[in-house]
């Protein structure tokens, strides 16, 4: 073995350690900032920013290497999924939306800045006839308002730029979808796999609990909780997450039931694996494709639930989600129709994109489908 090769091998060995050290360093730095945030300066970052930094560090340090390690498999699934044009279109739209939500706000004006000089501007290319009551003459005068390039999607009744609102709403909807689905999927997977693996009494208890949760009208619960605790987006996300796991649990359970009887579970048991280990490192990795599909297909439901809640007036008034814009717009649907149509179209496209992507992924992951 040459000296150079030895060095490479040495470095490769160190990488594992370096990764852990880097993670600890980032977390320590973050901890210091958080302490400063709490005790010295007020509000350096919002709470969500911390969460994103932790998740991002985890993804860069541990997610990317393992994705790289399984690049062959990812390539294979990509080849299968990319045969479905609609799924690719959906994925493209979702990526565009994510990009829009992240870097869009840097280029738009403040979505909350009201400007009554420019209220009710139609989108560019449209004109609107408006009657204005003139106090001096005591008469109505009609004048035409034309959309300007400055506000391509127009403005609402307070003169706020609709494009900026839609872009900031995209961030809200995606975050709601991501976190609520994350909570629901994590809970559902854990409960489903545990019920299937332990079987017997435990299975019965967990599944009857799931049935009860399923029959419970969760939207009513949501309305109830918002009514009691006030409309807070974090609350809403957590409640959607805590109530939305039932279908996932059932699907994951039925898939795990057949896995449980496979010989490799018995084999790893025979070689001394504990129950926790079998659940976490043998059963869950084997249902990961199902988890990805369920997650993709349940994100639109969550986004719609939040929008519906906002629409009936129980959304967080401090956050301009698509549902809130839609609600504001529907009151003047006969005149300033674009205020309601713009978020409606975005909701429609987003839900459609996630559904198409989910269907494509389901076909790609299903070994029985010939696509």
């Amino acid at each position, binding site marked *: 073995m040459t000296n150079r090769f030895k060095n490479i091998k040495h470095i490769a*060995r160190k990488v*594992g350690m370096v990764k852990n050290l880097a993670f600890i360093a980032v977390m320590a730095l973050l901890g210091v900032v958080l302490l400063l945030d709490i005790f010295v300066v007020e509000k350096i970052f919002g709470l969500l920013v911390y969460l994103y930094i932790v998740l991002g560090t985890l993804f860069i340090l541990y997610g990317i290497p393992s994705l790289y390690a399984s690049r062959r498999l990812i390539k294979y699934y990509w080849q299968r999924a990319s045969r479905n044009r609609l799924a690719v279109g959906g994925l493209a739209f979702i990526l565009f939306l994510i990009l829009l939500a992240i870097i869009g706000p840097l280029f738009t004006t403040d979505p909350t800045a009201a400007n009554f000089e420019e209220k009710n501007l139609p989108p560019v290319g449209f004109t609107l006839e408006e009657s204005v009551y003139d106090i001096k003459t005591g008469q109505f005068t009609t004048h035409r308002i034309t959309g300007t390039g400055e506000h391509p999607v127009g403005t609402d009744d307070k003169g706020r730029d609709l494009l900026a609102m839609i872009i900031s709403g995209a961030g809200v909807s995606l975050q709601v979808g991501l976190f609520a689905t994350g909570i629901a999927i994590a809970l559902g997977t854990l409960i489903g796999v545990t019920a299937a693996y332990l079987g*017997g009494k435990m299975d019965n208890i967990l599944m009857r609990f799931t049935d009860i949760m399923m029959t419970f009208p969760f939207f009513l619960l949501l309305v109830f909780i918002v009514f009691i605790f006030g409309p807070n987006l974090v609350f809403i996300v957590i409640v959607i997450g805590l109530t939305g796991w039932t279908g996932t649990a059932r699907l994951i359970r039925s898939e795990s039931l057949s896995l449980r009887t*496979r*010989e*490799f579970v*018995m*084999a*790893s*048991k*025979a*070689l*001394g*694996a*504990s129950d926790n*280990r079998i659940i976490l*490192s*043998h059963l869950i*990795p*084997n249902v*990961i494709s199902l988890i990805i599909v369920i997650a993709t297909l349940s994100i639109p439901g969550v986004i719609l639930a939040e929008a519906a809640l906002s629409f009936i007036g129980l959304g967080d008034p401090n956050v301009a989600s698509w549902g809130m814009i839609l609600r504001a717009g529907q009151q003047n649907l006969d005149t300033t129709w674009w205020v309601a149509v713009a978020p409606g179209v975005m909701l429609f496209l987003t839900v459609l994109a996630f559904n198409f992507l989910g269907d494509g992924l389901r076909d790609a992951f299903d070994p029985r489908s010939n696509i």
Partner: protein
Amino acid sequence: MTDVILRIRNLRTYFFTRRGIVKAVDGVDFDLGKSECLCLVGESGCGKTVTALSILSLIDSPPGRIVGGEIYYNNLNLLECPPDQIRRIRGKEIAMIFQDAQSALNPVFTIGDQVVEQVKLHLGTTTREAKEKAISLLEEVGIPTPEKVANYYPHQLSGGMRQRAMIAMSLSCDPQILIADEPTTAVDVTVKAQIMDIFNQLKNTRQMSLLFITHELSIVSEIGDRILVMYGGRVAETTTVSELLNNPKHPYTASLIKCLPDITQVRDRLETIPGTVPSLIDPPGGCLFHPRCDKALPICREEKPPPVTITNGHTVFCHLYSRKGEMG
């Protein structure tokens, strides 16, 4: 005899099904010596695998339950161990490999990852040391280019390679006892020969006891020191391999050996044993083999045959050799 490492006494494992109680293992006794190879032989459904699973407390419960008996591993009764202790013994002290390596390996992890996990789990080494150990284990079981194979998924390997990887996994913690449950059944004859070579080699290089479950007498003659013939969940005969092949006492064993094709004789049809394995839900009374036995005595229908010692280490459960049988 050498030191006994595993002593099983009156092991009874029953399955409580809707149709009745299946006495899958009904009073099995045997000793496994240090670095000895004991072969468990018998037809399908005679309780070989259930015996092996009972040793590691791996019987699915419900419906199965070990209703009685003792399993001593170095003076430790495994049936009285708390689950945690049993779990630490599994894999580290007593390892088991299964018939079908295809399904006994987790399809979503590479071979290397699975061996490394095993090493880390029981020996608590760092990932780097575990990787080196995994590579050397794969080399020991005769996998060429182990560094490359370690990165393969189970479905990318041939049946023989998978079985070797499975053996490597079970050897990862240098177990005292290796239970091999029909490791050659799911592979073709060429691979079978290779696998048997590995077992022979392991027997010579490692101080390990081997409990080898099979239904092929040809394999027994190749690897076994002693043999235990089971029938319907009970022991029929136990002795050394050469003694059994040359001087079978139990009518069942004798007919089994008669069924082996002989290259020196011209025959139109191979010998068979008439009848089928008895139902274990509703077994015949007395000796379980009497409906198929051509030497059956009236007493065989009535009474369970007692153990009869023919010579030192050769025991047969048959009325033909007991005093009661002689009187009747």
